[in-house]
């Protein structure tokens, strides 16, 4: 994964309100208004957070199929998958390096 995307994902998740949004969206897609009510945030503040979440790719926006003025937000799995693969790579890296350290210590045993 590109590191700048990882960076953006981490940055987007560094805010408690945005994490709360993610928590809510994990249950089901929500309207912007519902999110604002649930989290008790003003409309402009919520819009700002939703914009950040959209930019990071964690969340996507749709129009309501019955009322095009209403926006629906839902989670996108890609950034989480990317984060997961970064974790897996890092995990594999240190497992390999620790095994190498162990081999080195066996070789140089005093």
């Amino acid at each position: 994964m590109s590191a700048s995307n990882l960076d953006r994902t981490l940055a987007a998740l560094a805010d408690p309100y945005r994490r709360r949004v993610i928590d809510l969206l994990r249950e089901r897609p929500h309207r912007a208004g519902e999110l604002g009510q649930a989290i008790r945030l003003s409309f402009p503040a919520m819009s700002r957070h939703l914009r950040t979440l959209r930019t990071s790719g964690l969340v996507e926006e749709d129009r309501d199929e019955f009322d095009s003025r209403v926006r629906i937000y839902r989670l996108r799995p890609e950034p989480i998958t990317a984060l997961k693969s970064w974790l897996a790579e890092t995990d594999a890296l240190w497992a390999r390096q620790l095994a190498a350290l162990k081999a080195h210590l066996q070789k140089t045993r005093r």
Partner: protein
Amino acid sequence: MTSKVFIALRVPADPTRAFEAFTREISSWWRPDDLFQITPQGDGELAFEPGAGGRLVTHLNNGETFEIGRVSVWEPGKRLVFGWRQASFSPEHSTEVEVRFEPVGNGTRVSIEHRGWDAIPERHVARHGFPEHVTLQRVADWWRSSLSALRFDMKHRESL
């Protein structure tokens, strides 16, 4: 479930020797890997500058030196903490690695914790306009409680 990568392995040496090997002899045991390269020129030859404030650098084949991170904790035989930045990371972004050395029988349990998002630097946070009261610890807590629900299934290796 945790927000970090955690790996532990038992090695046949006392903690002092294991710490010495990990730091002073890193160029002898570090294994470069095609999939996970520190820089596009490869991993190079890694070296720790001893002591807190010292750097972990790698000397590349083209003669350049790349700084992977700075040592923040240097406790021989016990604990080592250093920054970890690959060349592909943005300048503000760094992760942190903590290595612990604990005596077990006549060997040492070496454990590595690589903290990714729990170590977002203040500067970085400021740049993105986060409220000041948001502490990094809260970010970490959220990850801990939340990632399991996302079925974020990280395998943890324990050899002990």
